[in-house]
């Protein structure tokens, strides 16, 4: 008997495109996967520069793990702890894990603030943390304000299953994409006019894709804004330890500590070990909330994404090693700074500027406005296609981050070795020089389909570890 597949049998979520994979940007990933760069096997393949992963200091972690076999309970040295850990699934998490995370978070912020381990709630990666916080703070139909440009994953993580809306708060290159009070007010008013209830403001600090930090004045202004409107503030500080040069990172925790008039019930931090430690496969996401109800609610929801107890135990051991943590943070910053310098210098040689104020993150915000045929997003997409198919780099176009000005691209620089980085830079140089010589690219790439500014997604960070390939795709690994 042949059964016709009844698609109406599935949920609305099943038939929606809330997953974001239908966007044209999928093309970039498809292109990469079908032709991944490998120094030996496939030197002409596409280089992955759309994945914001931190591979620079993974060796330090590997070394520590090798030297501390007890930390992983699945070793002969660690086996004594095995049964208690293997059976543990309390959603409060191992106390030593929460303690270690609270300590680490403080260290990353220069010990200028302290964190209460009882407010540390774990989740399935920052992805799970964001979704959970949305479930806790807003009902379907309600909205969060989000300054642009922002990480495309938010469109999916905060909206897909929760039904929550995102309202962009625009920023401009003329003031380095700073978040202004005026823009916040405008977005808030627009929401009101459209009868949308704004429940909170989501900021990412340091910013993805800009790589910039919010200064003290902006943070204070934001805190005043949310208090006045009585809305929540969710601070994604996932890139906190990637700040590699002055000025120092200022966490929202510092601001609310000083500001005695701030209603702490409004403030929540989302964190993860994926970027700072370069270990996304651990799936350690953290919600830190000053609001007891949110802590309680998030904790119960954490059942849907508990961190494995083995991982908790390992992290607790690792992060309690003060010497290692100090060394790691310092070394990681040094390597990040070096990589940043080499890349910005390399780009400068090709007359490509990046956002100057950026001193954090695992990427650069490239200004390619000069290479656009015209100041439109269609031209940006056309240029992007050329970069993927001709220059053979998978970078991320600004419109996928909801940037209001065409011509900006995010390029990830921490997910490859030095050799690959050189190849990427030389390809860029070649392309730019060629483009200077010729008026039009040899192939005209037609833009297919309509460009929806409100819903473009990027496949960036989507196949995140453990589902995602590390810098080399499975095809590449398979060839080894």
């Amino acid at each position, binding site marked *: *008997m042949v059964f016709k*597949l009844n698609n109406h*049998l599935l*949920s609305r*979520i*099943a038939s929606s495109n809330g*997953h974001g994979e239908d966007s044209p940007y999928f093309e970039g990933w498809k292109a990469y996967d079908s032709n991944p760069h490998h120094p030996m096997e496939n030197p002409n393949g596409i280089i992955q520069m759309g994945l914001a992963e931190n591979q620079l200091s993974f060796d330090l972690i590997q070394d520590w*793990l090798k030297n501390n*076999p007890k930390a*992983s309970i*699945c*070793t002969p040295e660690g*086996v004594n702890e*095995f049964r208690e850990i*293997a*059976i*543990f*699934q*309390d959603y*409060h998490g191992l*106390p030593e894990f929460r303690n270690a995370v609270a300590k680490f978070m403080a260290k990353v912020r220069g010990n200028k603030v302290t964190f209460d381990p009882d407010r540390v709630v774990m989740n*399935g*990666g920052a*992805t*799970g943390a964001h*979704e959970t916080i949305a479930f806790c*703070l807003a*009902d*379907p*139909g309600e909205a969060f304000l989000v300054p642009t440009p922002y990480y495309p994953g938010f469109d999916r993580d905060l909206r897909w299953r929760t039904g929550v809306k995102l309202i962009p708060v625009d920023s401009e290159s003329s003031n380095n994409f700073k978040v202004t009070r005026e823009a916040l007010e405008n977005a808030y008013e627009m929401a009101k006019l459209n009868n949308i209830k704004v429940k909170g403001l989501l900021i990412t600090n340091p910013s993805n894709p800009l790589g910039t930090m919010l200064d003290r004045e902006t943070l204070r202004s934001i805190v005043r804004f949310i208090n006045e409107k*009585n809305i*929540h503030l969710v601070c994604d500080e996932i890139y906190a330890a990637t700040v590699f040069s002055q000025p120092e990172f200022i966490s929202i925790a510092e601001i609310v500590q000083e500001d005695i008039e701030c209603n702490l*019930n409004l403030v929540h931090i989302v964190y993860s070990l994926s970027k700072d430690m370069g270990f996304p*496969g651990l*799936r350690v996401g953290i919600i830190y909330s000053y*609001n*007891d*109800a949110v*802590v*309680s609610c998030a*904790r*119960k*929801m954490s*059942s*849907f*994404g*508990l961190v*494995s107890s*083995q*991982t908790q135990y*390992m992290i607790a051991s690792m992060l309690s090693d003060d010497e290692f943590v100090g060394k790691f943070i310092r070394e990681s910053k040094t390597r990040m700074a070096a990589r940043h310098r080499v890349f910005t210098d390399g780009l400068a040689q090709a007359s490509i500027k990046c956002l100057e104020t950026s001193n954090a993150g695992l990427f650069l915000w490239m200004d390619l406005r000069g290479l656009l045929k015209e100041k439109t997003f269609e031209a940006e997409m056309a240029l992007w296609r050329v970069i993927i198919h001709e220059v053979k780099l998978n970078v991320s176009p600004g419109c996928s981050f909801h940037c209001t000005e065409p011509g900006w691209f995010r390029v990830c620089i921490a997910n490859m070795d030095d050799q690959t980085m050189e190849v990427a830079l030389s390809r860029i140089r070649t392309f730019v020089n060629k483009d200077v010589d010729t008026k039009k690219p040899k192939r005209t790439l037609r833009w297919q389909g309509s460009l929806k500014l409100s819903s473009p997604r990027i496949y960036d960070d*989507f*196949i*995140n570890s*453990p*589902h995602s390939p590390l810098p080399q795709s*499975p095809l590449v*690994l*398979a060839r*080894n």
Partner: protein
Amino acid sequence: MNIHPNSKGSIFRRGNQPNPHDPTSNTRRTTHQPDSTKIHRNETHSATTRHSSSSNTPSNPPSPSSSSPNLAELSRTSSRLSLFSRVGSSGPVSVSSRASLIVRENDSPYYIGLEKVSKDPYDKERNPDGIIQLGLSENRLCFDLIEKWMVENVREAMVGRDGEHLSINGIAAYQPSDGLMELKVVKLRVSVTLLFMMIALAGFMSQVMRKVVSLDPSQIVLTAGATPAIEILCFCLADHGNAFLIPTPYYPGFDRDVRLRTGVELIPVHCRSADNFLLSVTALEQAYNQARKRGVKVRGILISNPSNPVGNILPRETLHNILVFAQEKNIHIICDEIFAGSVYRGEEFVSMPEILVEEFDKNRVHIIYGLSKDLCLPGFRVGVIYSYNKNVLALAKRLTRFSSISAPSQRLLISMLSDTKFIEEFIKTNKQRIQKLHHSFVDGLKQLGIQCIESSAGFYCWANMSELISSYGEKGELDLWDKLLNIAKVNVTPGSACHCIEPGWFRCCFTTLALEDIPVVMKRIRKVAETCKSLS
């Protein structure tokens, strides 16, 4: 204050809006009924002596009898006097309806029991008067086997880049250079390690189900535990406001897993002791029709096989009838087979893959599995969705971005699961030990005059203590539960927490005990049993 009970996100049915000022206005329950949404899968709250973190949980009221905190009156504990506990002058702030609901709910007696055990856990040497935990379906009987395997087989920390260090015990057959592997990896868009996990899990499940069917690894989606697996399936198969039919009594965690964030309803299909609590299609039909009359769209049936808390295995005929029913009504079947490996009685366990033959539309069948029970590793967070429906698999896979398996855990599991000889021994020994404990425990209860349903699987028995309850009803049942907890100092799960329609039934888990603990348990229960009998 700004709670929005009428907002669209509310999981209440229309017309039954909760009154934010009445903490007990939860329309589907009386104040006494245990609220199951709070119950954590496996009902763990610092079960072991080393973890007593639950006492520090903010905002959980310590006593069950006080009314739940109204959001406007959330009080701060004294430990929060510092920076962390300032309430701003603008007053309390609103969170989502879901969050308000969770915060307002009464503590279920079940949760209270776990909390009490964690504060005063029994230890033969160090705390012989402590509370004995019988409310947790955890299996501690076979750790020695796993530990022995690890000492013999694990050479190093097993953390490395994708694809490395996987040459232990038979994985050699799965080297990444295998062309077929390459295709699969690209086609399924998974990493090499994850593919190995899928293959290993498919093999393990097949072994657990007595190798009657071989399972296809590409039909597996891995999640961080069975808890998110169920939630993900609900998001795939149903919309907010739809419902699943579920036979009672059922695992209390389903109330949270299915309902908490999806807005999907659970409609109980009551089973009775006269039928040994086995599901009848007539009851299914009735429940389905009643739902229709109410205007609720039923999207599927959620069954557990082996069942929890009763421990039945569904006969072949019943499974067949359920499949026919689902086909007729054009709905899905979710079958939770997480206890499949714990079948200790001779009867044959028939799993879904076995019974699905050509005459059925497989697209509507989805299986939940995990390593928490059969491999005794709940902490590792490994859950499985096994589905025949390509669309569901694709969607579920995307949704696992919110609940994915931790990388370090995968490597150990891959090598352990691939050691099929070890797994064979493990499954066999595990069943033997469970059976031994089961016999001893049920016998012990029998001698107290307490009968149990004749179960074939699971870590628990389903005991009829209705003769011991003073008033035949939920209140009487909870009074007995309270006595058992506070006087006998034994924590069991009352049937009302499992939505059982007949009062007086209790689930007692015995796999956290050693054989010599059983007489201690029985002595304590006897104390209460005798008092109850003399009162009635």
